[in-house]
Protein backbone atom coordinates (compact mmCIF):
# COMPACT_ATOMS: atom_id res chain seq x y z
CA UNK A 1 0.00 0.00 0.00
CA UNK A 2 2.74 2.43 1.00
CA UNK A 3 4.72 1.70 -2.15
CA UNK A 4 1.67 2.40 -4.33
CA UNK A 5 1.09 5.61 -2.43
CA UNK A 6 4.67 6.73 -3.14
CA UNK A 7 4.28 5.83 -6.81
CA UNK A 8 1.04 7.78 -7.14
CA UNK A 9 2.71 10.78 -5.48
CA UNK A 10 5.69 10.38 -7.79
CA UNK A 11 3.36 10.41 -10.78
CA UNK A 12 2.00 13.74 -9.53
CA UNK A 13 5.50 15.22 -9.11
CA UNK A 14 6.64 14.01 -12.54
CA UNK A 15 3.45 15.37 -14.13
CA UNK A 16 4.08 18.80 -12.59
CA UNK A 17 7.69 18.62 -13.80
CA UNK A 18 6.44 17.86 -17.31
CA UNK A 19 3.92 20.69 -17.13
CA UNK A 20 6.64 23.05 -15.92
CA UNK A 21 8.91 21.93 -18.74
CA UNK A 22 6.21 22.58 -21.35
CA UNK A 23 5.36 26.06 -20.00
CA UNK A 24 9.02 27.10 -19.64
CA UNK A 25 9.80 26.13 -23.23
CA UNK A 26 6.59 27.45 -24.69
CA UNK A 27 6.94 30.93 -23.20
CA UNK A 28 10.79 30.99 -23.08
CA UNK A 29 10.74 31.66 -19.31
CA UNK A 30 14.25 31.83 -17.76
CA UNK A 31 13.39 29.22 -15.09
CA UNK A 32 14.33 25.57 -14.85
CA UNK A 33 11.48 23.09 -15.38
CA UNK A 34 11.89 21.86 -11.79
CA UNK A 35 11.32 25.32 -10.31
CA UNK A 36 8.41 26.02 -12.64
CA UNK A 37 6.91 22.67 -11.59
CA UNK A 38 7.44 23.48 -7.93
CA UNK A 39 5.65 26.82 -8.31
CA UNK A 40 2.79 25.19 -10.22
CA UNK A 41 2.45 22.48 -7.54
CA UNK A 42 2.40 25.13 -4.80
CA UNK A 43 -0.30 27.15 -6.59
CA UNK A 44 -2.33 24.03 -7.23
CA UNK A 45 -2.13 23.03 -3.57
CA UNK A 46 -3.09 26.56 -2.51
CA UNK A 47 -6.13 26.44 -4.79
CA UNK A 48 -7.24 22.98 -3.64
CA UNK A 49 -6.33 23.63 0.00
CA UNK A 50 -5.73 19.94 0.42
CA UNK A 51 -2.48 17.95 0.48
CA UNK A 52 -2.88 14.30 -0.45
CA UNK A 53 -1.11 11.61 1.53
CA UNK A 54 0.43 10.34 -1.73
CA UNK A 55 2.26 13.60 -2.46
CA UNK A 56 3.70 13.75 1.05
CA UNK A 57 4.80 10.12 0.84
CA UNK A 58 6.68 10.77 -2.43
CA UNK A 59 8.12 14.18 -1.50
CA UNK A 60 9.71 13.33 1.82
CA UNK A 61 12.19 10.69 0.56
CA UNK A 62 13.07 12.81 -2.49
CA UNK A 63 13.83 15.88 -0.38
CA UNK A 64 15.93 13.72 1.93
CA UNK A 65 17.92 12.61 -1.14
CA UNK A 66 18.77 16.12 -2.40
CA UNK A 67 22.38 15.94 -1.17
CA UNK A 68 22.92 12.62 -2.97
CA UNK A 69 21.40 13.98 -6.17
CA UNK A 70 23.77 16.95 -6.46
CA UNK A 71 26.87 14.82 -5.73
CA UNK A 72 27.64 13.90 -9.38
CA UNK A 73 27.73 17.60 -10.28
CA UNK A 74 29.90 18.48 -7.29
CA UNK A 75 32.49 15.86 -8.26
CA UNK A 76 32.98 17.58 -11.63
CA UNK A 77 35.08 20.34 -10.09
CA UNK A 78 37.86 17.88 -9.19
CA UNK A 79 38.26 17.01 -12.87
CA UNK A 80 38.03 20.48 -14.37
CA UNK A 81 40.09 22.36 -11.78
CA UNK A 82 42.89 23.05 -14.29
CA UNK A 83 40.70 25.39 -16.32
CA UNK A 84 40.76 27.95 -13.53
CA UNK A 85 44.46 27.78 -12.67
CA UNK A 86 45.68 31.00 -11.07
CA UNK A 87 42.18 32.11 -10.09
CA UNK A 88 41.67 29.76 -7.15
CA UNK A 89 42.74 32.20 -4.39
CA UNK A 90 40.30 34.79 -5.81
CA UNK A 91 37.52 32.20 -6.04
CA UNK A 92 38.03 31.00 -2.47
CA UNK A 93 38.26 34.50 -0.99
CA UNK A 94 35.16 35.66 -2.88
CA UNK A 95 33.13 32.61 -1.89
CA UNK A 96 34.13 32.43 1.75
CA UNK A 97 34.06 36.16 2.54
CA UNK A 98 30.99 36.75 0.34
CA UNK A 99 29.00 33.93 1.94
CA UNK A 100 29.86 34.90 5.51
CA UNK A 101 28.96 38.54 4.79
CA UNK A 102 25.65 37.64 3.16
CA UNK A 103 24.75 35.16 5.94
CA UNK A 104 25.46 37.84 8.52
CA UNK A 105 23.34 40.37 6.61
CA UNK A 106 20.36 38.00 6.33
CA UNK A 107 20.43 37.10 10.02
CA UNK A 108 20.79 40.75 10.99
CA UNK A 109 17.91 41.87 8.74
CA UNK A 110 15.59 39.04 9.83
CA UNK A 111 16.36 39.60 13.51
CA UNK A 112 15.34 43.22 13.22
CA UNK A 113 12.23 42.57 11.13
CA UNK A 114 10.73 39.33 12.49
CA UNK A 115 8.45 39.89 15.48
CA UNK A 116 9.29 37.80 18.53
CA UNK A 117 7.22 34.58 18.85
CA UNK A 118 6.25 35.46 22.41
CA UNK A 119 4.68 38.75 21.22
CA UNK A 120 2.93 36.87 18.43
CA UNK A 121 1.18 34.59 20.90
CA UNK A 122 -0.68 37.54 22.45
CA UNK A 123 -2.10 38.79 19.19
Amino acid sequence: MRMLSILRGFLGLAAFLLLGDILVRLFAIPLSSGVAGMLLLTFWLLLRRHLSHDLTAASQPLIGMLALLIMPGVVGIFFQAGEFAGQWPTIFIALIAGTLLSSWTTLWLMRRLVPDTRDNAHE
Partner: protein
Amino acid sequence: MSELLLRLESLAGELPQRTETAIVLTLAAYFAGLRLFAWLRSPAWCPPILLASCLLALCLALLPLDYAEYRQGVEWLTWLLGPATVALGVPLYQQVHHIRALWKPIALTLPPAAMLAAGYAVGIAWLLNASPQVLASLAPKSVTAPIAMGITQALGGSVSLLMGALLITGVMATLGITVMARGWRLKDERIIGFALGVNGHAIGTVRAFEIGPTAGAFASLGMSLTGVFTALWLPLMWHFVG
Protein backbone atom coordinates in the same frame (compact mmCIF):
# COMPACT_ATOMS: atom_id res chain seq x y z
CA MET B 1 39.39 -20.23 -21.12
CA SER B 2 40.52 -17.78 -23.81
CA GLU B 3 36.87 -17.06 -24.57
CA LEU B 4 36.34 -16.11 -20.96
CA LEU B 5 39.29 -13.71 -21.16
CA LEU B 6 37.86 -12.14 -24.31
CA ARG B 7 34.51 -11.64 -22.64
CA LEU B 8 36.27 -10.13 -19.64
CA GLU B 9 38.08 -7.72 -21.93
CA SER B 10 34.94 -6.49 -23.66
CA LEU B 11 33.25 -6.21 -20.28
CA ALA B 12 36.05 -3.97 -19.01
CA GLY B 13 35.48 -1.66 -21.98
CA GLU B 14 31.73 -1.58 -21.46
CA LEU B 15 31.42 -1.27 -17.68
CA PRO B 16 32.48 2.39 -17.33
CA GLN B 17 29.54 3.54 -19.46
CA ARG B 18 27.03 1.45 -17.58
CA THR B 19 24.33 3.16 -15.55
CA GLU B 20 24.69 0.62 -12.74
CA THR B 21 28.43 1.30 -12.43
CA ALA B 22 27.80 5.00 -11.94
CA ILE B 23 24.95 4.41 -9.52
CA VAL B 24 26.82 1.81 -7.45
CA LEU B 25 29.81 4.16 -7.16
CA THR B 26 27.65 7.18 -6.26
CA LEU B 27 25.54 5.38 -3.66
CA ALA B 28 28.54 3.58 -2.17
CA ALA B 29 30.45 6.87 -1.86
CA TYR B 30 27.35 8.51 -0.37
CA PHE B 31 26.93 5.90 2.36
CA ALA B 32 30.68 5.72 2.99
CA GLY B 33 30.61 9.53 3.36
CA LEU B 34 27.75 9.28 5.88
CA ARG B 35 29.66 6.63 7.86
CA LEU B 36 32.86 8.66 7.83
CA PHE B 37 30.85 11.69 8.95
CA ALA B 38 29.43 9.80 11.94
CA TRP B 39 32.87 8.37 12.71
CA LEU B 40 34.33 11.91 12.76
CA ARG B 41 31.54 12.83 15.25
CA SER B 42 29.53 14.98 12.84
CA PRO B 43 31.81 18.00 12.32
CA ALA B 44 29.81 21.12 11.36
CA TRP B 45 32.60 22.40 9.07
CA CYS B 46 32.52 19.32 6.87
CA PRO B 47 29.08 18.06 5.78
CA PRO B 48 28.71 14.40 4.72
CA ILE B 49 28.25 15.48 1.08
CA LEU B 50 31.76 16.96 0.98
CA LEU B 51 33.25 13.74 2.36
CA ALA B 52 31.14 11.67 -0.04
CA SER B 53 32.12 13.82 -3.04
CA CYS B 54 35.82 13.51 -2.18
CA LEU B 55 35.49 9.72 -1.89
CA LEU B 56 33.64 9.57 -5.21
CA ALA B 57 36.26 11.76 -6.92
CA LEU B 58 38.97 9.49 -5.53
CA CYS B 59 37.18 6.39 -6.93
CA LEU B 60 36.79 8.02 -10.35
CA ALA B 61 40.45 9.06 -10.38
CA LEU B 62 41.71 5.61 -9.37
CA LEU B 63 39.43 3.58 -11.64
CA PRO B 64 39.83 3.66 -15.43
CA LEU B 65 36.67 5.75 -15.63
CA ASP B 66 36.23 9.04 -17.43
CA TYR B 67 34.25 11.82 -15.72
CA ALA B 68 32.24 12.39 -18.93
CA GLU B 69 31.37 8.67 -19.06
CA TYR B 70 30.41 8.72 -15.40
CA ARG B 71 28.22 11.79 -15.95
CA GLN B 72 26.40 9.98 -18.74
CA GLY B 73 25.95 6.83 -16.69
CA VAL B 74 24.64 8.64 -13.64
CA GLU B 75 22.05 10.65 -15.60
CA TRP B 76 19.28 8.36 -14.39
CA LEU B 77 20.03 9.47 -10.84
CA THR B 78 20.55 13.17 -11.54
CA TRP B 79 17.23 13.24 -13.41
CA LEU B 80 15.58 12.78 -10.00
CA LEU B 81 16.74 16.31 -9.17
CA GLY B 82 13.78 17.48 -11.30
CA PRO B 83 10.97 15.76 -9.34
CA ALA B 84 12.89 16.47 -6.09
CA THR B 85 12.77 20.19 -6.90
CA VAL B 86 9.03 19.94 -7.62
CA ALA B 87 8.65 18.10 -4.29
CA LEU B 88 9.88 21.21 -2.46
CA GLY B 89 6.44 22.68 -3.20
CA VAL B 90 4.98 20.37 -0.53
CA PRO B 91 6.83 21.82 2.52
CA LEU B 92 6.31 25.25 0.97
CA TYR B 93 2.54 24.71 0.94
CA GLN B 94 2.57 23.20 4.44
CA GLN B 95 4.19 26.34 5.78
CA VAL B 96 2.05 28.88 3.95
CA HIS B 97 0.55 30.05 7.23
CA HIS B 98 4.06 31.11 8.30
CA ILE B 99 4.45 33.13 5.11
CA ARG B 100 1.07 34.75 5.73
CA ALA B 101 2.05 35.65 9.29
CA LEU B 102 5.51 36.91 8.33
CA TRP B 103 5.00 38.22 4.79
CA LYS B 104 6.34 41.65 5.70
CA PRO B 105 9.81 40.68 7.02
CA ILE B 106 10.08 38.07 4.26
CA ALA B 107 9.21 40.57 1.52
CA LEU B 108 11.64 43.11 3.03
CA THR B 109 14.50 40.66 3.64
CA LEU B 110 14.40 38.44 0.59
CA PRO B 111 15.32 40.89 -2.22
CA PRO B 112 18.34 42.46 -0.45
CA ALA B 113 19.45 39.09 1.01
CA ALA B 114 19.25 37.27 -2.33
CA MET B 115 20.93 40.13 -4.19
CA LEU B 116 23.72 40.38 -1.61
CA ALA B 117 24.22 36.60 -1.61
CA ALA B 118 25.30 37.01 -5.24
CA GLY B 119 26.57 40.59 -4.99
CA TYR B 120 29.19 40.27 -2.24
CA ALA B 121 30.98 37.33 -3.90
CA VAL B 122 30.82 38.75 -7.43
CA GLY B 123 31.97 42.16 -6.14
CA ILE B 124 34.95 40.70 -4.29
CA ALA B 125 35.91 38.49 -7.26
CA TRP B 126 35.60 41.46 -9.61
CA LEU B 127 37.84 43.59 -7.38
CA LEU B 128 40.40 40.76 -7.47
CA ASN B 129 40.30 40.70 -11.29
CA ALA B 130 38.50 37.39 -11.85
CA SER B 131 37.70 36.47 -15.46
CA PRO B 132 34.13 37.05 -16.76
CA GLN B 133 33.62 33.27 -16.89
CA VAL B 134 34.51 32.95 -13.21
CA LEU B 135 32.20 35.84 -12.31
CA ALA B 136 29.33 34.21 -14.20
CA SER B 137 30.00 30.90 -12.45
CA LEU B 138 30.04 32.49 -8.98
CA ALA B 139 26.96 34.69 -9.39
CA PRO B 140 24.26 32.02 -8.74
CA LYS B 141 26.27 30.45 -5.88
CA SER B 142 23.47 30.71 -3.30
CA VAL B 143 20.78 29.28 -5.56
CA THR B 144 19.69 25.66 -5.45
CA ALA B 145 21.59 23.48 -7.95
CA PRO B 146 18.95 22.86 -10.67
CA ILE B 147 18.06 26.58 -10.93
CA ALA B 148 21.67 27.72 -10.57
CA MET B 149 22.75 25.48 -13.47
CA GLY B 150 20.22 27.15 -15.75
CA ILE B 151 21.29 30.64 -14.64
CA THR B 152 25.03 30.08 -15.08
CA GLN B 153 24.53 28.67 -18.55
CA ALA B 154 22.55 31.78 -19.50
CA LEU B 155 25.38 33.98 -18.16
CA GLY B 156 28.19 32.03 -19.84
CA GLY B 157 29.70 30.42 -16.74
CA SER B 158 31.10 26.96 -16.07
CA VAL B 159 28.69 24.43 -14.56
CA SER B 160 31.42 22.48 -12.75
CA LEU B 161 32.96 25.60 -11.19
CA LEU B 162 29.45 26.59 -10.14
CA MET B 163 29.02 23.20 -8.46
CA GLY B 164 32.23 23.73 -6.51
CA ALA B 165 31.06 27.23 -5.62
CA LEU B 166 27.68 25.85 -4.48
CA LEU B 167 29.43 23.34 -2.24
CA ILE B 168 31.74 25.90 -0.62
CA THR B 169 28.86 28.36 -0.26
CA GLY B 170 26.60 25.74 1.31
CA VAL B 171 29.30 24.67 3.76
CA MET B 172 30.32 28.22 4.68
CA ALA B 173 26.72 29.41 5.06
CA THR B 174 25.83 26.43 7.26
CA LEU B 175 28.92 26.87 9.37
CA GLY B 176 28.67 30.67 9.55
CA ILE B 177 24.99 30.73 10.42
CA THR B 178 25.37 28.00 13.06
CA VAL B 179 28.21 29.92 14.73
CA MET B 180 26.50 33.34 14.41
CA ALA B 181 23.20 32.02 15.77
CA ARG B 182 25.04 30.55 18.75
CA GLY B 183 26.99 33.79 19.29
CA TRP B 184 23.83 35.93 19.19
CA ARG B 185 21.89 33.39 21.30
CA LEU B 186 19.42 33.22 18.43
CA LYS B 187 16.93 30.37 18.92
CA ASP B 188 14.16 31.37 16.50
CA GLU B 189 13.95 28.44 14.07
CA ARG B 190 12.18 30.63 11.52
CA ILE B 191 15.09 33.08 11.26
CA ILE B 192 17.84 30.45 11.30
CA GLY B 193 15.99 28.31 8.75
CA PHE B 194 15.29 31.20 6.41
CA ALA B 195 18.91 32.40 6.54
CA LEU B 196 20.14 28.84 5.88
CA GLY B 197 17.87 28.48 2.83
CA VAL B 198 18.63 31.91 1.34
CA ASN B 199 22.42 31.59 1.71
CA GLY B 200 23.09 27.89 1.83
CA HIS B 201 20.56 26.45 -0.71
CA ALA B 202 20.11 22.63 -0.49
CA ILE B 203 23.05 22.09 1.90
CA GLY B 204 21.69 24.71 4.29
CA THR B 205 18.20 23.24 3.94
CA VAL B 206 19.44 19.75 4.85
CA ARG B 207 21.02 21.25 7.98
CA ALA B 208 17.81 23.17 8.77
CA PHE B 209 15.74 19.97 8.65
CA GLU B 210 18.18 18.56 11.23
CA ILE B 211 17.39 21.52 13.52
CA GLY B 212 13.64 20.99 13.24
CA PRO B 213 10.61 20.93 10.89
CA THR B 214 9.95 24.68 11.24
CA ALA B 215 13.56 25.55 10.42
CA GLY B 216 13.37 23.11 7.49
CA ALA B 217 10.19 24.65 6.16
CA PHE B 218 11.61 28.16 6.38
CA ALA B 219 14.81 26.99 4.72
CA SER B 220 12.85 25.46 1.80
CA LEU B 221 10.89 28.68 1.63
CA GLY B 222 14.05 30.82 1.62
CA MET B 223 15.72 28.52 -0.89
CA SER B 224 12.75 28.46 -3.27
CA LEU B 225 12.13 32.19 -3.07
CA THR B 226 15.84 32.98 -3.55
CA GLY B 227 15.96 30.61 -6.53
CA VAL B 228 12.94 32.11 -8.23
CA PHE B 229 13.91 35.69 -7.43
CA THR B 230 17.53 35.23 -8.58
CA ALA B 231 16.51 33.41 -11.77
CA LEU B 232 14.44 36.47 -12.64
CA TRP B 233 16.69 39.40 -11.66
CA LEU B 234 20.22 38.07 -12.23
CA PRO B 235 20.09 37.52 -16.04
CA LEU B 236 18.45 40.94 -16.46
CA MET B 237 21.01 42.68 -14.24
CA TRP B 238 23.90 40.85 -15.95
CA HIS B 239 22.71 42.03 -19.33
CA PHE B 240 22.36 45.58 -18.03
CA VAL B 241 25.75 45.81 -16.25
CA GLY B 242 27.83 43.68 -18.62
